[in-house]
């Protein structure tokens, strides 16, 4: 039974290149040029899935993006699993492995199908809302069952081996869709030298022309397609993107295109190739030539495999050489639908009947059918289909002229295929992404794009212009319009033409009447993928859902991965009828990006793994790595955290680093601190306004600590700023705060004080900062410089220029540890050299590298704050006990002065930063612990503060903590309690923040 539905000749497939593929574990053969769907149909496979809610067998319905049923799981291995692939859009390749996603345990023998048989009463619309919402605690259980039964595909459990990326594009005109209208638009624009991108979701350009039998200038339409594509390919500024779906139309004419570069080649992308690419396009103008989707009719059991849309039948025959059945019944409301029966007949298969809902059709195609001797039954409809896993027959009856009721006797006809055509729905998705509301057009019997809100033009099927001649001329017109808007001269484009065919008006009909009322008749499906029936929509309307948006949410119509491409208009028509309104009165249907599902791979691009986020390194990073540093993320910086020796625990390592620094000398890579060079005659004045303390008298060569507050008076950054010259300062900021502080300075300068002569420049990356700290730091430094380091010549808070290890340096005698410290700044290209020299000479002093953790402990021993750790945006300088760092004597105000003077900032009992010493010296209070005064108070307890920093201090032999306590500064010596989640209560005494060397003698030696 090999390819029983394949024709011997015809179609755009290569019969000399057979391809093996797997579907549900069985191996089949198709041909190069097939889609997975055409190959499935060629092999006579009827069932491609089970429906979402009722578990009914479903077959291929369509031939393109609108396919609701043939949504398969692909992948030969675990790592290459891809869910949600429409078989109609997946090109066949040798070795393709596919699986139906719903059907438990399998599609042919589905344990859930009893639900479907028991039918509507078991699962009315709103079933999930009504049934599974209570008790709420069981939802997780329900959900996993529903998911398993519904079968929504699955993601791979292993990492995707393929590469996906993104690329930015710019063009004058982006043409979406390469059917007749799109090709004509692109040609028109390209000939005038415009930069054009032409994108189409299919493997080859041509759109409807690829499956059309109509002639252009007497020649097959595809020969014109070829010449048009060849010409476009020869234009320098034209980018042709086949296999590329324009999925989203965003603000400012920004569109996203999902291009599949290798999905048609193999399970995994060939070596060196990118699998999928997301194009981010900024287009000056967009021409939407997206065409239209045929609408199926809604009739009883219209979901039995074998029921298809009429144009898909033609496409499978003409493009793929596949006749998806033996005996066809066609039901149509229009002339164009006849084409399916004509093609079927020409393929030498039996057309049982053409059932036309119109009373007296006489159009050109109708006459062609009659001439071929086909059985045309008018004024009638297929009211019901028989069969379960495949159509076995149909019931045909006469209906009234309005299509509201059955008027005559029912005839049974045998058939295995029912094609239906209810007319066409323009593909307005992209247009509605922009926020443009579609407009109902009675003549088109569909929604067309409404007034555009972007630089958007439309052509062809999207406007309800379906004939080839109309599509071609609309395409040229759109191209010319775009050129005019772009102010580019137009070049003439001569179009081929097709023979005009007399086409009569179609009948406006969506739902076929049944003998029984809709609620009692066998199911009439509106949305296949979410199993929404006409009866379900009626129920929703009866239950009071009048807006189509509510009906959709209640029934789930349009909520599948196909976004209801086939069903939405039919559903609106059913709702309109139930509500006794017109379709436009019921509402409009709009769509959101994306048009078809986009893989996570394409969305992520290369921003994953090592490239997920930039990692910033200092010039000495390699040394840290080689010396076993553990790293801490500070913003995007990788900072050395601690440097454990083999077998050393983190605490042991910290103890060693802390002690070595206080006993001899330690070294910290402080290069990540933000550094801002400030120059200008008003630099000093500016500093006075931006910092809380005074800067007027800072002498050249001197450094000063400063606090920076927001307008609210709350501390947001701190650091040391040095005066390098009368008009020249160097500000340091916290590592994470550097960009924010620079922006803050620019903001105040540019918006508030532009009259101040001052410029700011970041020099963070320019300087490597090597901080040596500890009693032996002077001795160490003196080994590498001739400069007089005596306390008299180089005092605390001085900055001097000198040469260190042969490299010119700026050395700052400032200290974050309370020890004698030198911050050596050299141009970063020489940072590693100086660092290594320090170690060469540091051996004798047991020079010990330390990271951020030891830095935190050492500064906490001195009670120095870390902005962002001990402050949280609700703490002002006085709360920190840092009133010494606030000067209200400055002639001009400063940022935060007014904020600090607010009533709430002045009140008693604010949370204030204090030191905390545990009663048990070895117990370290967890950071974040809440403080209470009365440990016996019943829950909820009155919380009076929390711990901001907490460590074990090896130098002091006990734990130390910093934290805020209500009124803490006036509670010295009092006891507070920190109840823990495990029931322990840690007792601590409020004390000074300065645990070590309260007089600050160590740093002044």
């Amino acid at each position, binding site marked *: 039974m090999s390819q029983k539905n394949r024709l011997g000749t015809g179609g755009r497939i290569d019969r000399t290149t057979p391809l093996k593929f797997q579907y549900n574990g069985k191996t089949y053969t198709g041909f190069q040029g097939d889609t997975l769907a055409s190959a499935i149909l060629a092999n006579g496979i009827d069932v491609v899935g089970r429906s979402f809610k009722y578990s009914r067998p479903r077959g291929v319905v369509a031939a393109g993006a609108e396919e609701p049923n043939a949504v398969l799981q692909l992948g030969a291995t675990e790592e290459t699993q891809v869910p949600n692939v429409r078989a109609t859009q997946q090109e066949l390749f040798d070795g393709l492995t596919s699986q139906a996603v719903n059907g438990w345990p399998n599609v042919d023998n589905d344990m859930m199908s009893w639900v479907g048989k028991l039918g509507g009463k078991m699962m009315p619309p709103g079933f999930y809302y009504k049934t599974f919402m209570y008790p709420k605690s069981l939802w997780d259980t329900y959900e996993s069952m529903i998911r398993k039964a519904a079968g929504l595909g699955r993601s791979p459990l292993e990492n995707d081996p393929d*590469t996906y*990326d*993104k*690329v*930015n*594009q*710019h063009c004058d005109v982006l043409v979406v869709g390469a059917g007749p209208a799109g090709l004509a638009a692109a040609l028109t624009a390209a000939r005038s030298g415009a930069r054009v991108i032409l994108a189409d979701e299919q493997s080859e350009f041509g759109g409807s022309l690829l499956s059309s039998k109509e002639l252009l200038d007497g020649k097959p339409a595809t020969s014109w397609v070829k010449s048009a594509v060849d010409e476009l390919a020869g234009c320098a*500024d034209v980018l042709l993107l086949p296999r590329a779906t324009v999925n989203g139309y965003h603000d400012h004419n920004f569109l996203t295109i999902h291009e599949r570069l290798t999905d048609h080649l193999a399970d995994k992308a060939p070596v*060196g*190739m*990118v699998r999928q690419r997301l194009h981010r396009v*900024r287009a000056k103008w967009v021409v939407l030539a997206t065409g239209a989707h045929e609408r199926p009719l809604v009739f009883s059991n219209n979901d039995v495999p074998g029921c298809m849309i009429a144009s898909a039948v033609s496409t499978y025959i003409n493009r793929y050489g596949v006749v998806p059945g033996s005996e066809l019944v066609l039901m149509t409301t229009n002339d164009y639908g006849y084409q399916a029966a004509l093609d079927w007949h020409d393929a030498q298969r039996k057309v049982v009947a053409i059932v036309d809902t119109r009373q007296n059709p006489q159009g050109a195609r109708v006459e062609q059918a009659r001439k071929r001797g086909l059985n045309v039954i008018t004024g009638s409809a297929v009211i019901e289909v028989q069969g379960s896993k495949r159509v076995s027959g149909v019931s045909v009856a006469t209906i009234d002229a309005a299509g509201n009721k059955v008027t005559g006797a029912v005839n049974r006809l045998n058939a295995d295929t029912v094609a239906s055509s209810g007319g066409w729905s323009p593909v307005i998705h992209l247009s509605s992404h922009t926020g443009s509301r579609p407009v109902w057009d009675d003549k088109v019997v569909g929604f067309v794009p409404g007034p555009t809100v972007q630089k958007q033009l439309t052509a062809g099927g999207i406007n309800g212009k379906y004939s080839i001649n109309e599509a071609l001329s609309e395409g040229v017109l759109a191209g010319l319009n775009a050129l005019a808007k772009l102010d580019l001269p137009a070049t003439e484009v001569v179009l081929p033409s097709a023979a005009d065919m007399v086409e009569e008006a179609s009948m406006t009909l969506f739902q076929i009447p049944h003998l029984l009322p809709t609620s009692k008749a066998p199911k009439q499906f509106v949305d296949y993928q979410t199993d929404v029936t006409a009866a379900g929509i009626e129920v929703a309307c009866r239950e009071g859902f009048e807006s189509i948006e509510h009906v959709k949410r209640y029934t789930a119509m349009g909520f599948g991965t196909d976004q209801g491409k086939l069903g939405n208009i039919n559903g609106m028509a059913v709702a309109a009828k139930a509500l006794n309104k017109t379709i436009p009165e019921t509402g409009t249907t709009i769509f959101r990006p994306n048009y078809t599902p986009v893989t996570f791979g394409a969305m992520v691009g*290369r921003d994953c793994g*090592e*490239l997920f*986020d*930039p*990692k*910033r*390194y*200092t*010039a000495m990073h*390699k040394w840290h790595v080689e010396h076993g540093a553990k790293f801490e993320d500070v913003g995007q*910086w990788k900072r050395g955290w601690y440097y454990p020796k083999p077998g050393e625990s983190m605490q042991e390592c910290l103890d060693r680093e802390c002690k070595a620094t206080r006993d001899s000398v330690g070294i910290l890579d402080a290069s*990540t601190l933000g550094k801002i*060079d400030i*120059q*200008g005659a008003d630099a000093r004045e500016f500093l006075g306004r931006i910092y809380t303390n005074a800067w007027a008298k800072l002498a*050249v*060569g001197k450094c000063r600590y400063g606090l920076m507050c927001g307008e609210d008076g709350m501390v947001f950054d701190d650091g040391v700023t040095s005066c*390098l*010259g*009368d*008009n*020249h300062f160097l500000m340091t900021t916290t590592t994470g705060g550097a960009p924010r502080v620079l922006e803050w300075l620019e903001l105040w300068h540019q918006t508030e004080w532009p009259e101040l*002569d001052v*410029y700011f*420049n*970041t*020099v*963070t*990356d*320019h*300087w490597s900062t090597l901080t040596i700290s500890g009693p032996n730091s002077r001795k160490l430094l003196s080994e590498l410089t001739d*400069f007089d380091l005596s306390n008299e010549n180089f005092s605390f808070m001085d900055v001097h*220029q*000198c*040469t260190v*290890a*042969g*490299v*010119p340096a*700026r050395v700052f005698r400032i200290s974050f540890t309370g020890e004698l410290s030198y911050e050596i700044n050299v*141009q*970063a*290209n*020489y*940072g*590693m*050299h100086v660092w290594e020299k320090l170690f060469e000479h540091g051996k004798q002093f047991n020079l010990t590298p330390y990271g951020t953790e030891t830095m935190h402990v050492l500064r906490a021993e001195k009670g120095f704050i870390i902005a962002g750790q001990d402050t949280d945006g609700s703490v002002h300088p006085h709360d920190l006990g840092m009133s010494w760092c606030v000067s209200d004597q400055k002639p001009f105000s400063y940022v935060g002065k007014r904020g600090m003077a607010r009533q709430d900032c002045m009140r008693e009992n604010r949370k204030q930063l204090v030191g905390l010493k545990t009663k048990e010296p070895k117990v370290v209070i967890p950071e974040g612990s809440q403080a209470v005064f009365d440990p016996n108070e019943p829950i909820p307890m009155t919380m009076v503060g929390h711990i901001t920093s907490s460590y074990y201090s090896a130098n002091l032999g006990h734990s130390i903590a910093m934290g805020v306590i209500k009124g803490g500064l006036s509670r010295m010596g009092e006891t507070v309690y920190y109840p823990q989640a495990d029931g322990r209560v840690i007792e601590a005494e409020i004390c000074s923040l300065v645990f070590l060397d309260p007089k600050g003698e160590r740093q002044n030696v």
Partner: protein
Amino acid sequence: MSDLESNVEVVAKAAVMNQLPADGSGVRAESPLFHAELEVLAKQGPQQGGVHLRENKLQGHLTLRCNQNNPDQLAAVETVLGLALPIQPLTAVVKGDISIRWMSPDEWLIVVPGEQTFDIESCFRDVMTGHYSLVNGSGGQTIIELWGPDVVSLLKKCTPIDFHPTQFPVGKVVSSIFAKSGAVISRTGEDRFELVIRRSFADYLWLWLQDASREYGLVIEV
């Protein structure tokens, strides 16, 4: 070196220092991409490919901020560099081994041979008048030269800038996002570009460029 070892107090308005080690000091300079070992890759890596990359390292990077409406300052720049400040936004000028990139209406990046940095900086301090700032950022950034038939395709993966010759002719310069970092991008030839990137981001961008150029083939040159 004794003149160097002075307290900054002797410098009146702004502290200018020669930041380079003395000639013959044997001090090793490590550019931001030092650890990528580009010299080794240039020898051992592919010799053919669609994208070529070279680090133009250890140049002098001076950021000048001044007033483009001040004719004295414009004249001073020309005196010092023999090259006029590009006032036209988004343009760069090159003369010999000196280039100036327009960065913003009051900011320019002047790139000079590394060893001339201090002299040029000092010369500016002598000649420039009025309110301005000049900052040596040589250690904080490096220049990456990219060229080859696929260089534009590569750049399109990295930044949203339009590189069509009508939009981005030779001589244009922009500062923009580059991958998840940033770069100053200038076009120096039809298929030739320069990126000025920050030191701390250099490794990330080096990884990114290797990855993005994989499909074209990357040739390292020195």
